[in-house]
């Protein structure tokens, strides 16, 4: 069997590359639309099979490594490319392959009204993304990791801006690229520094060095912090989290794949992958915990006030990523990684479920929904499964991983972040069931009776996109089977992993107090109950609830002014400064040059007047010249 040597993992990677190359080069095929989609889906299916097989072949300590020289220097190898397949990377690979395949299938239904050339373009981007993400997951060294890191960022940019004729989408794409790029500046610097520090890019070699204590600790904190900055950008940690909610301008399947299940988790994955390195710098890990807990709380609060269903999910993603980060910072990256995997499944489910709703009601806004459970029972079931998983109730996917994270942070000795995360658990259940009740069970608010497309002007990406198709029937309905099938797969997986972990309950790396589980589950149940009382029973008035948290509520509506600060910094500081430099260049640096040439021209003009054409003047000139010469000879 070839599986052991990483060939299967490589095959999973290369299948997507093949699909991308075919679609990129064979333009006529791409412009056909659906056939292009089939090519892509076929490769994705093969890739999933290869990924699963390679996962099964890499349990326990089995590691396989394939590398080729990519960049030579001084006749030696400077950087390599290849695959590093082990238990962690192959399970992540499987997650990526699975969600990528499901999203590609789902998109067939979701984007069925897209023009054929755009659909082909969409699948080309999808394939490129899957390839890059897998390259990142399997990266044997920092160089390949960075290459793929940037490529997934590029795909994110391209897919957020997929409907680029919409100004909001074009802007959001730029914002996402720039903000994550800010973090990448740190990552790149960190990689260069650590290369000099350890003499290698290779993760395996570096790990051996770290194990032998051969990495000098002096200055290492700066390097790990720089690497962490990359993760801050990619995994949307405060203050670089602001791009992710705007990224929802992309098509919903893209949000599910890139901005929930896979790409945004790359930062968490990076820290997990190099946890032996971060373990050497506990000061940086402490920053990771605090920033994580703070971001989790901040975004959970923000999620509570959103009316756009995708934005609720986006803030929820930020919040959950921060959960994972907190666990890693506490020194138990396994807990964070486990949550990454379960979150990948149920958050993809929630996004795809939200996509089904948007597909049906042609709006992203919660007030435009309501009582959808009657018309879309299947969607209601799977979405609720996703919400229960996110809330972390027993028998659902998020249960164990959330408990482990809480336990990890507590075991790491971070009491205040722990308290913040428990509060987040409560808020998570609250905002998620706010969505569930408002969308599926509660009556729509007065004035919003029925679907939105009939009444209000849709103003959000997918909504306006779907509304533009001018479908006459606005009765919300179940999505087509190409969309339902992925939903059910993910829902069953959420329940299966949830039941598995609830029953098996693997032994964690740390001791957790007995009261931890009741606290975790209790806060989630309390959140659900509050949401039920407020939005279903309407026993509590939502407006007075908001008023009770006056300043926080108003701040949250303004996104706590963080976006505005960045906007100002960009407009005033960066563009303003660039205009100043541009002016200096044009009018001072170049001005000096123009002065010199103007003087030269002026001198020519002035000297020209000496050429009078009168012989007398020239004779005078000769006479004066002679006199000067004679005097000079005389006095030397």
């Amino acid at each position, binding site marked *: 069997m070839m599986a052991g040597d990483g060939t299967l993992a490589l095959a999973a990677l290369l299948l997507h590359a093949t699909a991308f190359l075919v679609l990129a080069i064979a333009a006529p095929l791409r412009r056909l639309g659906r056939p292009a989609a089939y090519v892509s889906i076929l490769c994705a299916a093969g890739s999933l099979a290869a990924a699963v097989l390679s996962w099964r072949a890499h349990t326990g300590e089995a590691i396989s490594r394939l590398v080729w020289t990519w960049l030579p*220097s001084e006749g030696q190898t400077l950087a390599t490319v290849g695959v590093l397949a082990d238990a962690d990377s192959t399970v992540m690979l499987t997650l990526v392959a699975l969600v990528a395949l499901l999203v590609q299938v789902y998109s067939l239904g979701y984007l069925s009204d897209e023009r054929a050339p755009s659909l082909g373009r969409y699948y080309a981007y999808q394939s490129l993304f899957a390839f890059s993400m897998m390259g990142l997951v399997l990266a044997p060294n920092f160089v390949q990791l960075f290459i793929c890191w940037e490529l997934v960022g590029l795909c994110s940019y391209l897919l957020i801006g997929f409907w680029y004729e919409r100004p909001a989408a074009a802007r959001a794409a730029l914002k996402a690229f720039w903000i994550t790029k800010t973090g990448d500046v740190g990552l790149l610097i960190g990689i260069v520094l650590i290369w000099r520090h350890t003499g290698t890019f290779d993760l395996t070699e570096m790990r051996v060095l770290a194990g032998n204590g051969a990495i000098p600790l002096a200055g290492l904190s700066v390097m790990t912090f720089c690497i962490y900055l990359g993760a801050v950008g990619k995994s949307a940690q405060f203050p670089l989290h602001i791009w992710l909610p705007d990224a929802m301008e992309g098509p919903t399947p893209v949000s599910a794949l890139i901005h929930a299940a896979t790409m945004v988790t790359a930062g968490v994955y990076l820290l997990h992958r190099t946890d032996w390195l971060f373990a050497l710098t506990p000061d940086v890990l402490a920053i990771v915990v605090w920033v994580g807990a703070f971001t989790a709380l901040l975004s959970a609060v923000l999620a509570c006030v959103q009316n756009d269903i995708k934005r609720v999910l986006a803030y929820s993603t930020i919040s959950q990523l921060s959960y994972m980060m907190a666990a890693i910072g506490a020194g138990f990256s396994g807990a964070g990684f486990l949550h990454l995997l379960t979150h990948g499944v149920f958050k993809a489910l929630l996004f795809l479920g939200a996509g089904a709703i948007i597909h049906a009601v042609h709006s992203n806004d919660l007030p435009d929904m309501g009582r959808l459970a009657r018309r879309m029972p299947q969607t209601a079931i799977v979405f609720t499964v996703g919400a229960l998983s996110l809330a972390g109730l027993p028998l659902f996917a998020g249960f164990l991983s959330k408990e482990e994270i809480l336990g990890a942070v507590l075991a790491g000795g971070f009491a205040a972040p722990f308290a913040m995360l428990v509060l987040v658990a409560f808020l998570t259940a609250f905002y998620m069931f706010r969505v569930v009740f408002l969308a599926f069970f509660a009556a729509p608010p007065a004035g919003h009776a029925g679907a939105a497309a009939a009444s209000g002007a849709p103003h959000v990406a997918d909504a306006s996109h779907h509304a533009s198709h001018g479908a006459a029937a606005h009765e919300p309905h179940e999505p087509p089977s190409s969309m339902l099938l992925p939903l059910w797969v993910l829902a069953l997986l959420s329940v299966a992993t949830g039941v598995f972990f609830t029953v098996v309950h693997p032994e964690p790396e740390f001791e957790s107090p007995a009261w931890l589980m009741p606290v975790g589950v209790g806060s989630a149940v309390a959140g659900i109950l509050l949401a039920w009382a407020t939005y279903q029973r309407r026993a509590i008035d939502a407006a007075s609830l908001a008023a009770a948290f006056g300043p926080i509520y108003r701040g949250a509506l303004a996104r706590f002014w963080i976006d505005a600060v960045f906007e100002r910094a960009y407009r005033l500081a960066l563009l303003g400064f660039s205009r100043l430099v541009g002016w200096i260049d044009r009018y001072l640096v170049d001005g000096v040059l123009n002065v010199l040439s103007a003087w030269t021209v002026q001198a020519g003009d002035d000297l020209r007047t000496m050429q009078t054409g009168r012989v007398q003047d020239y004779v005078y000139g000769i006479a004066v010249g002679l006199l000067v010469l004679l005097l000079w000879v005389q006095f030397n």
Partner: protein
Amino acid sequence: MDRLPILSIMTWAPFASALVIMFFARRRPLLVRWTSVAGTGVSLVASIWVYWTYDRVRAGFQFQEEFSLVPSLGISYLAAVDGISALMALLTSIIIFAGVFASWTTKQRSQEFYALLLVLVTGVYGVFVTLDLFVLFLFYEIAVLPMYLLIGIWGSSGDVRPQGIFGWAMGRTGVGTKEYAAMKLTLYLLFGSAFILVGVLALFVATGSRTFSFLELQQMRFDPALQSWVFLAFYVGFGILAGIWPLHTWSPDGHASAPTAVSMLHAGVLMKLGAYGVVRVGMGLLPDAAVDWAWLVGTIGCINIVYGALSAMAQTDLKYVIAYSSVSHMGVVMLGAATLTPNGLNGSVFQMFAHGIMTGLFFALVGLVYEKAHSREIFKMSGFGTMMPGIATAFTIGGLSSLGLPATAGFVAEFLTFLGAWTSDYRWWLFPAVIGAFLTSVYVLRVAGQIFWGPKSADPHFQDLADAQGPEWAALGILVFVLVLFGVAPSIAIGPVDTATGPLLRRLIGQ
């Protein structure tokens, strides 16, 4: 001679086709173009052949051709390439081959236009393959002078309002007109070449007036004081052509005014002549001075990177953005060289190549956009992506390479330079370099987003614009392909370059 004089064929094929064009192609525009394609095609094949068959194990200068021109002064026609010049010759071939297609639609006096362009290219090849400093200088002048006519006749004028404390002077010199740009560029470069000539003669005299041969000069170790000022002369002389700050201001005006193929060639290849001169002649012949002056070269490189990027961000004319981005990227070239490390120098040479291709692509695209939309005003254009998806895609790929996105040639070059900077004696160089890459991502994507990816403009002038067509695709296709190929498989380029930078550095560091 027992084998084909392949370097001479490569160098003189464009010149021969220029002669054919001048004498046999009067009033036959299509013949002019196909003769140009043939001439540059021969060079392209020759340079690929040279590059492919270059013996990496043996390394050093290969494909040597020599015959004496003026024995009494030791002047000879001495042509040979090592890894660096082979890559530069390949770059020249790709750019001019694409440039011939990009200027296919030139209407005015196309016969003379193509002839001058081809003569100019012969000069460029000459500089890259010649190892005799005197002949090198001749070729250098051949490469610089036709530019005056090319810009002055076929160029375009812009609009620059005189203001500031030096405004009176600007009004007087006619800032913004193509004549101004042509004159400024020519005078600036001639000013630089005066320094070069002085440097060359100083070395010649120091050998006892025996030889101009690079190979022989390389064996000598000149007096440090002499080295020091001659290096500065070369740095200023060649550096002007490489756009070093603050002597770069000819570049934005010149490139903005020049016609498409000339901008492509000038920013793509001629600026590399300057950097190549600093590395080959300056660092190669004056190793001690190169080490002593590294701080200056690298620091000015850093200024170029950040200052160029910020200036580019401030521009509203598309061509000026690209021109300033060249100033910024040439900073990476100079910085990489100044690190005096293997990675930095490899990065520097790779950046010469990568920047050449990407800026060639950019100018080709700007030319196409201008031809279709008759505008270079960034903020008046919008949403062209739907009408010209091919141009938009190519522009975006060029932009991504420009900001150093992996899987494009730009990333490899910048990454190597960063590694070099951090291992050099002046580690802080890393930070301006990385920040420059970030600034590039801001201005390049902002421009791409404004022009191509946004809501469609309502301006009646910007409706139903066509995408690239026919021969124009050839230019774009070649350049995009090369950009991605060298980004995905950088060892194609680094392999031969590495064999040349190693020995150069060993001379510098003195092992």
